[in-house]
């Protein structure tokens, strides 16, 4: 039994790991909250403005209007960016207590700095860190985890661009910090129900690492010494 477990760990450690990740908050002077999140070579910069005045046409009487913009590095934003924007917006709306700021606007701008796989999860992480930096009230934190299933059926977390291309299925989950529930999921490719559940379970495990990182970075930020 002990042996079998060891063998499994050896195998999993080769495929299942989060790349080194880093984050810097409050790096831009203009936005109310900003962060850059780096996962391996993938890097996203996020800026949050708000709560601020809102256009009358976009006003919602009982909560804040959240706008999310994702800007690609080359060219104009297209359908792909729109789809990602929606994923991020719905996740943020689920986490933010937007009813505390009725009839106001929150805008979140995400600038892609470099894409080397797991872009959407990096966007989600950068968004959460920026919202935290802006000091907006949130019911819970969230993080994004991308899982890929390769041709042999193995699960790879936080895949690089190359791994994404070689994968059979690709899924991204947003997971909340309180109950580790799935806030958003988006998938590509074909997979079985069993594989989906496995990926969710892996993502929940991986999310613990990310939330620990959030915790560490906030602790560092509000510590007196480095």
């Amino acid at each position, binding site marked *: 039994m002990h042996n079998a477990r060891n063998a499994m*760990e050896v195998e*999993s450690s080769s495929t*299942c*790991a*989060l790349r*080194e*990740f*880093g*984050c*810097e*908050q*409050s790096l*831009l*002077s*203009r*936005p109310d909250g*900003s962060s*850059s999140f*780096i996962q*391996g*070579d993938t*890097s996203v*910069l996020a*800026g949050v*403005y708000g709560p*601020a*005045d809102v256009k009358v046409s976009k006003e919602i009487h009982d909560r804040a209007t959240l706008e999310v*913009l994702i*800007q690609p*590095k*080359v*060219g*104009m934003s297209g359908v792909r960016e729109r789809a990602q924007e929606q994923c991020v917006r719905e996740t943020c709306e689920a986490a933010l207590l937007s009813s505390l700021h009725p009839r106001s*606007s929150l*805008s979140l*701008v995400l*600038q892609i*700095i*470099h894409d*080397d796989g797991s872009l959407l999860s990096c966007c989600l992480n950068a968004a959460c860190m920026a919202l935290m930096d802006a000091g907006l009230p949130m019911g819970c934190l969230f993080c994004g985890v991308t899982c890929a299933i390769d041709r042999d059926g193995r*699960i790879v*977390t936080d895949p690089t661009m190359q791994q994404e291309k070689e994968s059979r299925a690709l899924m991204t989950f947003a997971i909340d910090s309180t109950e580790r529930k799935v806030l958003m999921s988006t998938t590509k490719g074909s997979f079985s*129900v*069993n*594989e989906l*559940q*496995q990926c*969710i*379970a*892996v993502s929940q*495990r*991986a999310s613990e*690492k990310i939330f620990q*990182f959030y915790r*560490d*970075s906030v602790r*560092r*930020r509000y*510590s007196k010494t*480095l």
Partner: protein
Amino acid sequence: MKETPLSNCERQFLLKAIEEKKRLDGRQTYDYRNIKITFGTDYGCCIVDIGKTRVLAQVSCELVAPKDSRPTEGILFFNLELSSMASPAFESNRQSELLVKLNRLLERCLRNSKCIDTESLCVVAGEKVWQIRVDIHVLNHDGNIMDAASIAAITALSHFRRPDVGIQGEEVTVYALEERDPIPLSVYHMPICVSFSFFQQGTYLLVDPCEREERVMDGLLVIAMNKHREICCIQSSGGIMLLKEQVLRCSKIASVKVTEITELINKALENDRKVRKDGGKFGFAESMPKERITALKTEVAPVEMTDIEEKAKEIICRTEAPSEVVSSPVVCAPGTGQVGEGLQNSWGLEEVDALEDDVGEEREEQDMREQLEEESRNAEKGDVVVISDSEEEDVVILHEGTQVKHVKKQSVDSQQLAPSTAKRRRRRKKQVI
């Protein structure tokens, strides 16, 4: 979102400070803020910081057909974007006056000064040339976007490498970066913009204005120059009259600044080249400041997945099996398909069919009897008698259909007609199938 207006107090304070040769951030009149250049992992990608102003540039290339007027020249394309991240007043996808001005100035500074050899970008004359596209995103606006953008653009262009191309007869092969070493662009010189802001109708002059200073300035002079002291482009805006001496003095200051900045760019490029050659780590992840209290970095974090399979199985076992409600599709009318019961398409169906809906399936057994009765009744009326399912049935249905329409409202008895006709119709369908 609108820009917060500058109060009169602030305005007066700023102007008074400028009169006393003092600046908000403690700089001297001719000082630049700190310039920092960092490169990304891609070729042709860099971030330039001038103080708090931050600009991202990315160069990309693509094979396109050349312009008819210049069949042997590559195309340079500049696209500066004022992201709404940079300032709440900027709106994405909107052509503001400032945006147009900056884009035009950038084009004049870099394209019209012919700093890039466009002829070397030609692959097949008149058919295929490289189009070099420079995307510049302003990430944080703290004044002097133009200088930052021009430094970012020329640095990115010098850093960029395009894929090698092989031509054998008619065939053009573009080699991937792994196959053949990519080729850098040939950069003749590096034009760099230097901005001067004027206050009090040109009495006071400041180099590299910050955002607050830009708001109270009267006029702006931008000089693009290279390190050979050649002026590539000059533009004065804001509508102030400048004396010849003032312009000459500005050009002298610009030449000093440009030499400094060019040296900085070359040093940054050299550093990056060295790191890449030595196989060290490079990219934005490496240039992230580690000593800051707001920044944190972790190592690769393994994710334990020992009991993942059991967990997945458990969840699947716990969920109820989906109830098998999906019956075979029922075709209610030709051309429509349906799964299950309930919603039915009533488009373009005759009233007879609509009536059938009301009656339902439980009446099917009765239909046989009713049909017999009805047939005998029809015979009494002297209509066409239908004895069996024959081709003549069509006639009967049409006739009866009309009959049904006007009898329908009168009695229950007449309703019985409807199912029978419908029934017969269905039977005919079966035959067709």
